[in-house]
């Protein structure tokens, strides 16, 4: 099963990315685990420079931006 993690300490952008990802997953009907990562030590473990970030199965996809639901669907499918 795919595991998606949204990295971000919890600011407005991080929340938006989480909501967008949630919608993208739902609209695609993906069977996956979606998790919000707020622990800074874990976030820094992924070596990103800016938040929010998106991790799929342990691989960072992007950081520092909030793509639209459509763009996320493209990435996830």
């Amino acid at each position, binding site marked *: 099963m795919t595991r998606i993690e949204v990295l*971000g*300490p*919890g*600011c*407005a*952008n*991080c929340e938006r990315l989480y909501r967008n990802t949630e919608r993208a997953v739902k609209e695609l009907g993906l069977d996956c685990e979606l998790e919000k990562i707020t622990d*800074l*030590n874990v*976030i*820094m473990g*992924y*070596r*990103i*420079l*800016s*938040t929010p*970030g998106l991790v799929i199965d342990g691989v*960072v*996809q*992007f*950081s*520092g*931006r*909030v793509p*639209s639901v459509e763009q996320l669907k493209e990435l996830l499918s």
Partner: protein
Amino acid sequence: MSRSPSRLARLLPSLAGALLLWVALYGVLQRAAAWFTRDLLGLDAGTHLASAVEFFVYETPKVLLLLTLVVFGVGVVRSFFTPERTRAILAGKAESVGNVLAAALGIVTPFCSCSAVPLFIGFLTAGIPLGVTFSFLISAPMVNEVALALLFGLFGWKVAALYLGTGLAVAIVAGWVIGRLRLERHVEPWVYQMSAGDAGLPAHRTTWEERLDQGLEAVRDIVGRVWPYVLIGIAVGAGIHGWVPENFMASIMGRGAWWSVPLAVLIGVPMYSNAAGIIPVVHALLEKGAALGTVLAFMMAVIALSLPEVIILRKVLRPVLIAVFLGVVTTGIILVGYLFNWLM
């Protein structure tokens, strides 16, 4: 990628059309506001109410128009600067050159305050000196497109340029001073144990289409978020404009009151508001006799330093370094205030 040229070809004419519309709207604003106030509402020119209403009806669309244009432009420019690229530019630069570059890059690198910690760690572990990192962290929130657009719209280009110039100067000098003080031991030790390097993100070639999209996205995001503050700020400003007597502020925030600069800064530091809310109010105060330096210092203090950011930075900085950071930046802002009161 075959569809991208056609999408760009469609995007450009609509952007050009939007720009023409923008220019046309901007040109008729003043007359439209006067017509709305005097002819449509039938308010007599010279009354408090007419003065306040006309101010509001003119300034609100003007500021929103300017904000939209500037945010779009900066959004496109920012697509050229990622934090990763900024870090690569700053790594290996000597300290003073680094401070100047870091402050300048702070304007154009996308940054939100909750990214402060990852960025701080990422910079330090890449070998960027502490002081250079601080120059970036001071400049990024303080000198931003929203503040510059509002200053330009309400105060004119001179004040906007002064804010830009002095904001950069504070960031450069404060960062340099922090670097000279050799405070590395007051960074939480775990920071230096974090591994350097980057996430190994695949290199992404950004197309012009994506850059323009990023500009539009910035408009949706930023203007969509700050317009209520602009409205409230200008409404309060309009109230002050219409009803507060001339020179009311002169005794409190005027040039004569030497203590007004530090007091304004001390009040401003813990306050947390974005530029959109504070600048229209400050503009109205200036009209009523407050001194430019005092007002500018207050504004900088509100925008540059905030309690939430300090709380976030506490995760990586020990109290001594937090205190030095606040102290150095506050002193810089106070000096800017005095400089302007003396110059203008």
